[in-house]
Structures are given as structure tokens and as C-alpha cells.
């Protein structure tokens, strides 16, 4: 992601004090633990022109829940800070397509790839076909559409542990769909989905790998 952004001429900073958005806790029902993370996020990123996140579920967490979490904490300054900062927080693909208005970011990835639409990106962030347009502009790529593009891969955070059997069944459908495309690699905007899918692809010794959208976009033609 850093590579792509710098290639496009932007200056990237990584505030070292950042840790986690708190989604795992919040979504599992633990609402006390993630509260301090709101203030932490604000203090780390407050001055940024734009905050870019390689994970649609993290951005969804912040957009959907940070305002009310700040309200719960009751700190007027924090509420205001969150309100001001959130419009500058982007998931990586939406930063490129919506904020920068780009589709071609100068990438080269000569492989057969299929794209999985992560649920949070699709439904919470409304990424639409942004990721696919970015992929289509990649030189050398052979993009194949997957059946059941919008169907959940079955990760769902702690769901994969608490309901391991159902999660596995959902994953089996997704894995089959990936294999049916004949792709070498499956990509998405969320590492949680990719880790999940990769787990099965590897266990089954399919030889198919997963790769984050950012990795594809970062990939360049080798210098001769």
C-alpha cells in the first residue's frame, strides 16, 4: 500500500502508536475494552490529510461505531474530533477510486486473478465496483469473475471459532467457487477474508494463493 501511494506521489506516514480499531471486541459483545481505542486512534491520526486503511472491516467499524462510542464516553472534544476525522478515513481502494478518482495506478500483474467482495466493503462502505475497476486497469492481469461474488466467506471474526462448523461450510462454498474460476490467486480488500480463504486453499493443497488488492496494485514490471 505504501508502495502504491508513494508511486502516486504521496507522502506516507505510519504513526507508530497505532494498535487496533477494536472491532473484534465490539462485534463479540465486549463494549468496554474498545472504548479507549477511539481516543487512541484520534490522537494518532488527528493531523492527517487522509488516513488510508488496507481493511474495509476496520473502516466500517470506525464509520459505523466510533461516533456512538465517542458519545458513550461523553467527551465533547472527542466527539467533535471523531466527527472531523472520519470523513478523512478511507479504505485503500476507495481512497484510490473515490478520493483520488483513479483507476490505473500503474500496476503490472500478469496472472489469472479472481476477486472476492468482502462483506464490510460491499455493504457497509458501498465500495461498489471500485476494486474491480482498479483490477481491470492492471496491465497483464486476467480477471475472472467468481460465482457468488457477494456471498460471505464465513470468517465473521470470532464467528469462525464460535461457529466453526458453519464457518467451514460457508468457506467450502467460497473455496469451490474460487477453484472453479481457474484463477491462480484470489484477491480482496480485507486480510481477514483472505486469511480465511487461504487457510482452506492451503490445507487442500490447491496451489491457489490469496493476495491482497494492495499487493497486486503495488506489483510492477520487472526492470529488464
Amino acid at each position: 500500500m505504501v508502495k502504491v501511494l508513494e508511486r502516486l506521489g504521496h507522502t506516507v506516514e505510519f504513526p507508530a502508536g497505532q494498535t487496533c480499531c477494536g472491532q473484534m471486541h465490539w462485534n463479540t459483545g465486549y463494549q468496554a475494552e474498545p472504548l479507549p481505542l477511539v481516543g487512541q486512534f484520534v490522537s494518532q491520526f488527528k493531523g492527517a490529510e487522509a488516513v488510508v486503511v488496507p481493511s474495509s472491516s476496520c473502516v466500517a467499524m470506525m464509520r459505523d461505531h466510533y461516533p456512538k462510542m465517542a458519545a458513550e464516553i461523553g467527551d465533547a472534544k472527542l466527539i467533535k474530533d471523531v466527527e472531523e476525522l472520519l470523513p478523512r478515513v478511507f479504505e485503500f481502494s476507495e481512497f484510490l477510486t473515490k478520493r483520488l478518482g483513479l483507476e490505473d495506478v500503474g500496476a503490472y500483474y500478469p496472472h489469472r486473478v479472481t476477486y472476492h467482495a468482502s462483506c464490510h466493503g460491499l455493504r457497509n462502505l458501498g465500495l461498489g465496483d471500485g476494486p474491480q475497476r482498479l483490477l481491470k486497469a492492471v496491465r497483464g492481469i486476467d480477471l475472472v469473475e467468481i460465482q457468488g461474488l457477494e456471498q460471505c466467506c464465513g470468517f465473521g471474526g470470532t464467528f469462525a471459532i464460535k461457529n466453526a462448523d458453519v464457518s467451514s461450510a460457508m468457506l467450502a462454498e467460497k473455496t469451490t467457487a474460487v477453484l472453479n474460476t481457474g484463477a491462480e490467486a484470489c484477491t480482496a480488500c480485507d486480510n481477514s477474508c483472505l486469511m480465511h480463504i487461504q487457510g482452506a486453499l492451503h490445507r487442500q493443497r490447491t496451489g491457489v494463493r490469496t493476495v491482497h488488492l494492495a499487493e497486486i496494485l503495488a506489483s510492477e514490471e520487472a526492470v529488464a
Partner: protein
Amino acid sequence: MSAKLHVLDPTTSPSFPVAAKTMLGNTQLRKNVRHATEVIQNKRARVVSELPDWQQLREAGRQIRTHTMANLDFYLEEFERNCTKAGGVVHWARDAAEAKQIVTALVKASGSDEVIKVKSMTTEEIHLNHALEAAGIRAYETDLAELILQLGHDMPSHIVVPALHKNRQQIREIFQREMNLPELGERPQDLADAARRFLREKFLRVKTAVSGANFLIAETGGVCIIESEGNGRMCVTLPETLITIAGIDKVLPRFQDLEVMLQLIPRSATGERMNPYNSIWTGVHEGDGPRTFHVVLMDNARTEVLADEEGRQTLNCVRCGACQNACPVYRQTGGLAYGSVYAGPIGAILTPQLQQMHHAQSLPYASSLCGACYEVCPVKINIPEVLIHLRHKVVEQKDTLDAEALAMKAMGLIFRSERRFRAAQRLGRIAEAPLVRKDGQGSGWIDRLPGILGGWTQVRDLQQMPKETFREWWEKRGSRGK
């Protein structure tokens, strides 16, 4: 009636993960569920795309239902007034027990020891048939699916297509046996014809009917039933006495509001522009329909749901079942895994709340929070939000020494401090080392995790942590970076 009857009772049902595991092993069921949900989803998508104002309808639906719940007492009283004025008799029931008691007494008072019933989730919720049988009253289900379930001693697995877990061979066997039709054909048309003949005899003869209601219209005192087969019309028109039982959440402010619901519901429930029959009647009408009409308004913990500001939107549900068809979890397990007559996404939020969070605590976790349900809900219930809210309620009930709670606390502490976060990353690398094995390509993978994490490695490998975390990479290049 000697066969074992599955009872979907949330107070005794196994937890979702346990029940789901059983259902996942039922290949026939999974096939039926997949087929049924796909068919309805495709039909729904087609008819929804025909309406350019679909999103505006959804928003109106949401506002109508929200407004109703905010003024529920007012509208219930208005309905009662207008229904009574038109010759209906309105009863109130605090809970399931009282509702059953009232209905049983009313049936007896009607002078009949049998009733014909229209499908009603409300009657399933309270297990009405069981109470009627105990009082010596035979209840005949008249919806084809409910008939199939009743004759097959089974329970509903879907709000709108309750017997979708049965295929035609299974249905044929049930009919052959229970209707005494050894020569019965196996085409769906044959089965429907058999049901028609079997039930027609009852429609023309039985004096008392029990129904649910889709809507109680406050402005007019009218009741609206939305159906496909015509058995509803039979039950609310031909008998001498009609007893309608409805949750208090069924009330609708005005006649005009039906213009929204009658567009949202058929398209969402069965993927049709309009379902075959809608019946609206008001009290008693001389010479047309039952001479005696009773409505039983039942609470049964709906007021508890109403009291929870964040859970309240659950009551906006119009029982279309679209969420079930869209849900990737339901698709794998079917409805019976939820251990309640309300299954799928709506079941995951309604059932525990109706149980006041004493039971069905695994249901809010029976979801990957993918949001497909919210996308299709005709009245825009934010089911994922409510799921998270209910998970919080479950956690609050937990013992502080609960293993999961402790682990979560520990993780929380780690996330609050960058120093601890780094330390955890280092520790993770150390801890995983003994579990890592190199694969054919030389990269490190873990194929067996201990304890509860073992659920992950059942079917998945976990890649070894990268040699260099992003943090470390960033710091290394620091001075060299642009």
C-alpha cells in the same frame, strides 16, 4: 400421533453451534434449503428491480413501523375501539399461557371440538395446537406446508415456506400414509390435488376457525391477511366463528399504510408482484362471513423488546422471510438449527429478546455479520446492529471469570498500549514456533491449534506470522524512505 414431535422451544433447544452441526450433516436438507433460498432470492431480485421507487418504499415502511411502535398504546386502543364498533370482540393476553387459555375457551364457547387453522407464526410461537389438543380440540392445519408438517409431525423451518426442508418424495410418503392414498402420484400437482381434496371437506364443514393476522388496521378496526393458497380465505369466510390471534406488534396505523406493505411484502416474501389473495375484513358483516369474530391481542414479551431502545426495531418485522433467504448461515443450516419458530437473521434477534435474554443466547452469535439481511429487509431493520447489541447483553450477563471474558480483557489491555502490542507480536512469534511446519514451498504453516482455536484448524491452515512485521519494516526503512 405416536411419532415423536420435534418441538422448537427456545428454552430447551440445543445451542446453535450444536444444532447446526447436526443439520450440516443432513445433505438432503441442505440441498433443499439451498435450492429454495436461491429460487426466492432470484425471483425477489427480479421483481424488486422492476420498481424504481423500491428504496423509497423501504424507507416509508421503516418510518411507518417505527412510528407505530412509538405510539403502540394509542394505535392498539384505536384498533380495539373500531373493531368493537364493527361487531368484533377484542381480548388481551399478557403471555402465551393466557393467550392459549383465551383461545381454548373461545373455541369451546363456539360449540365446536375442531378448528381449521390458517398458518400463523404467532400460534406456532405459543404452541397453540398442543394446548388445543390437550383440551380435546382437534386443530387442522390448512396451509399446504403446515399440513405437511402436521401430518409429518415436524416443525417449521422457514417463515414463509415452512416445509422447504422437505422434498416431494418425503411429502408424498407423508400424504400416502396419513391421507390413506397408496396410489398417490409424485408430481407436485398430484400432491397439491390430494391436499385440496383432503382439506376441502373440512372447509365446508368445520364451524370454527383460528387465524393469525398480518396487520390490524387501527383506523378502521380491520384485519388483513396476506396469503397464497386460498385456505386463509376459506378459514376467515366460511365458518360461523373466527378467532384471530395477533401479537401487539401487528397493528398498522391507517388503511393507506397498506399501500406500502402490500408492495413490500409480496416482493420480499415470495418474489411476486402480488401474492394471490389478500383478505381484509372488519368486525362482523351481516350475511358475509363469520357471525362471531374475536381478536386476541397478545404481548408475550413484545413489551420487553419495546423497552430496549436499540432492540426495539426488531418489532418492525413484517414476517416476510427475506432475511432468511439472503442469509449465508441459514443457507447452510436451515431453520431448525435455530431452535425456534423464528429462525434465520430475524430469529437470531427476536427469539432471544422474546426470551428476555434468559435463553437462546447463542443465537446472536449465529451470524458472520455480513449484512445481507439488512440489505433485503423491506422495512430496513438493521439486523447486524441489533445482533451486536444483543451480543453485548449476553456478555453483560456473563461471569467475570468466564474464560472468554478474561481473554478479551487481556487482548483489550494489549491493544491499549503500543508497547504491549509489539510485545504481543514478539510473543506470538515465539508461541507459534513449535506449531509451525514448512510446506512444499518452504513457507511456514500451522495445521493444528490448541483448545477452542482448534475450530480454525479443522479445515484451515494458519500461515506463520511474517518474518518482519509492517512496523519493523517501516522502522527499518525510516531514514531511507521519501
